[in-house]
C-alpha cells in the first residue's frame, strides 16, 4: 500500500476545484433569476427555455441568432466529422498497412502527429492564406460555411487517423493475411473483417472529431463568413457586449454535450481495447 501525504491530497483536490469551479459558476448563473450582476435571485429554468423560444426571451433577436448559430454549428460539425472520419480512416489504414520502410513510417507518423500539436492559430492563419489563393480558382473557398468545413476537416483528420491507427496496431496484420489466405478479396476482407473490428476505433475517432468541431473557436473565427456564425463565435461576441444568463445556459449545454461525447468515446475505446 502506498500512502498519500495529506499535502498531496489537498493539492489534488484544490487543482480539481481550480479546473471545474469556473464551469460550475457558469452553470450556477445559468439558473439564476437575476439578469444583471452577481447576486443570487432564486432558481429558474427560464434562460434555458428562452434559448428554445424567442417569445420567452428578454432579447428575442439574440435567441434567433443563437438558434441560427446552433444550426450552423451542427451542420458544420456533422459534415466535417463525416468527411474527416472517412479520410482519417483511409489515411490510418494506408499508413499502418502499407509496407513502408522504417524511416518512411517514422516520418509519416510524425507528419500525422504534427497537426495535433500545431497551435490552432497557426493553422487558422495558414488556412486564411491558402483560401485567399484558392479563391481565385473557386468560390468554394470564399469565407463561410464551406470554407469552415474544409478548415475543420483539416484539423480533425489527424485525430481520427491517430485513434484508428492505434486500433489497427492492436489488431495486427495477421488477420489481413489470414483473410487473404482464406480466399477473401480485398473488398470482402474490408467488409467482413476490417470494418467490424475497426468500428469502435472509427466511432471513437468520429466522436472526438465531432467534439473538437463543436468546441472550435479559432479556426471558425478565421474562416467564418457574415452569415455563418457558430455557437462559440456567438459566445465570444456576447462576452464583449456583456454576458447574459442566456449565454451561461448555452455554455452549460455545450459543456454537457462535450462531456457526454467524451465519456461515450472513451467508453468505446476502452471496451474494445
Amino acid at each position, binding site marked *: 500500500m502506498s500512502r498519500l501525504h495529506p499535502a498531496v491530497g489537498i493539492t489534488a483536490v484544490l487543482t480539481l476545484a481550480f479546473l471545474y469551479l469556473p464551469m460550475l459558476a457558469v452553470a450556477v448563473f445559468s439558473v439564476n433569476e437575476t439578469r444583471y450582476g452577481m447576486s443570487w435571485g432564486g432558481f429558474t429554468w427560464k434562460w434555458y427555455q428562452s434559448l428554445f423560444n424567442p417569445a420567452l426571451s428578454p432579447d428575442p433577436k439574440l435567441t434567433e441568432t443563437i438558434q441560427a448559430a446552433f444550426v450552423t454549428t451542427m451542420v458544420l460539425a456533422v459534415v466535417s466529422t463525416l468527411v474527416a472520419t472517412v479520410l482519417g480512416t483511409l489515411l490510418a489504414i494506408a499508413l499502418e498497412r502499407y509496407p513502408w520502410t522504417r524511416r518512411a513510417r517514422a516520418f509519416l507518423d510524425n507528419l500525422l502527429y504534427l497537426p495535433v500539436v500545431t497551435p490552432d492559430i497557426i493553422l487558422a492563419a495558414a488556412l486564411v492564406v491558402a483560401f485567399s489563393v484558392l479563391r481565385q480558382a473557386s468560390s468554394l473557398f470564399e469565407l463561410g460555411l464551406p470554407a469552415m468545413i474544409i478548415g475543420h476537416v483539416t484539423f480533425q483528420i489527424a485525430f481520427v487517423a491517430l485513434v484508428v491507427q492505434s486500433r489497427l496496431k492492436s489488431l495486427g496484420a495477421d488477420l489481413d493475411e489470414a483473410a487473404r*489466405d*482464406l480466399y*477473401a478479396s480485398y473488398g470482402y476482407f474490408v467488409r467482413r473483417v476490417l470494418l467490424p473490428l475497426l468500428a469502435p476505433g472509427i466511432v471513437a475517432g468520429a466522436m472526438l472529431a465531432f467534439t473538437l468541431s463543436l468546441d472550435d473557436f479559432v479556426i471558425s473565427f478565421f474562416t467564418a463568413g457574415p452569415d455563418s456564425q457558430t455557437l462559440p463565435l456567438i459566445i465570444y461576441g456576447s462576452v464583449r457586449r456583456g454576458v447574459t444568463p442566456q449565454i451561461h445556459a448555452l455554455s452549460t449545454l455545450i459543456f454537457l454535450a462535450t462531456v457526454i461525447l467524451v465519456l461515450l468515446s472513451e467508453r468505446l475505446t476502452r471496451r474494445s481495447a
Partner: protein
Amino acid sequence: MAVTRPSVNPQARAATGTLAVEDVVKRFGEVTALGGVSLEIKAGEFFTLLGPSGCGKTTLLRIIAGFELPSAGCVRLGGADITGMPANQRPVNTVFQSYALFPHLSVFENVAFGLRSRRVPQAEVQKRVEMVMGMLQIERFMARYPHQLSGGQKQRVAMARALVNEPQVLLLDEPMSALDAKLRAEVQVGLRRLQRSLGTTFILVTHDQDEAMTVSDRIAVMREGQVIQVGTPEEVYARPRTCFVAEFLGAANLIPARREGGGAETPLGPLELPAPPRWEQGNLAIRPERVELVPDPRGHNCLRARVRDVVYRGSHQEAWLEPGGLRVRAAAHPALRPGQEVVVHLPKEALVVLDD
C-alpha cells in the same frame, strides 16, 4: 488432437501435384533471406522446414502461401507456375503461428470463412464445417468466440479453418509453439495421424528438431537462407552431412580428423572409417548413444578414457569423458562415477564422415 473421421470429402482427396520450389531467392533490402532454394515436395508428403530462427524457413513458407513475392526463382504446383498467383487464389491454406483467428467471429464462422468468401451455398457450408469440426473434435466450441478458447482449442480451430477448404497443400507455421510441452507431444502425434488420413501435403515450419522428427516424412534442414540437407528423419539424424546438421538434430560428438590412408588420425587416436574421407582435414560425427562402453580394448576404434562428469537422466545416464570431451549415453546401470577409467568403442559403422 484425435481424429475420428478419416476424411472431409474422400472424392476431393485425389492425389494432387508436386510442389516445386525452384532457385528461389528473397532479398529484403540488403538482407538476403533466401539464397537460391530448390525443393521438390511430393503430393501427400509431410514435409518439414527445420532450422534456427532467421534461417529463412518462414520466408519460404510465406512465398509458398503467396504473402511474399520471391526476388528470383519460381514456385510450381502440379507443374503450373504459381509464383505470381495472389494468395487468395492459391489452393493452399495456412495455419498461422498466432492462429490469427477472427476475434469478432464465432468458431463456426471462423471455420466457415474460406467457404463464405468463395460464396459456397449455405447448405454445403453447414455440412463441410460440421464435418471438419467433428474431425478435429471442436463441435462443442462452435458458438464460442476465440477469446473463450484455450491455446490447444485455438490451434484446432485454426487447423479446421484451413482444412475445411480442402487445400492441396497445408502450410503450418510453428503451429505448436504456443502449446505447453506435454500437449505439444500429443498434438504432434495427432497431426501426423490427421495428415496420413487426409493425404494432403503438409509443409511444417519449426525450429524444434524433436517435432520435425516426430511428424515428418522428410525434413529440409535450413541455415542462413540455404537448404543444407534434405532427407527422411532417419537420414538426417543418422547420416548428417555437415557439422551444423549433426549438432542441430540432437546431440553429436564432433571429432576433428586428418585423413590417414582409408581411415583418420584424430585427437582420440587413429580411427577406422566406413568410407575413406574425401578431404584431407575435416570432421567426424558420432551420436552419444552409438558410443559403446566395453570391458577391455579389443580391435580397432577402442580407447581408454576417464569419466569427467555424469548426469543421471532416469532412463539412461549421460557422461562426458576425457580426453576429448566425448559424450556418451549409456544404460542407467551400472552407475558411472566421475574419475572412473572406462574403455570406449566407436563402432566403425556409427562414425559419420562429414562434408566439412
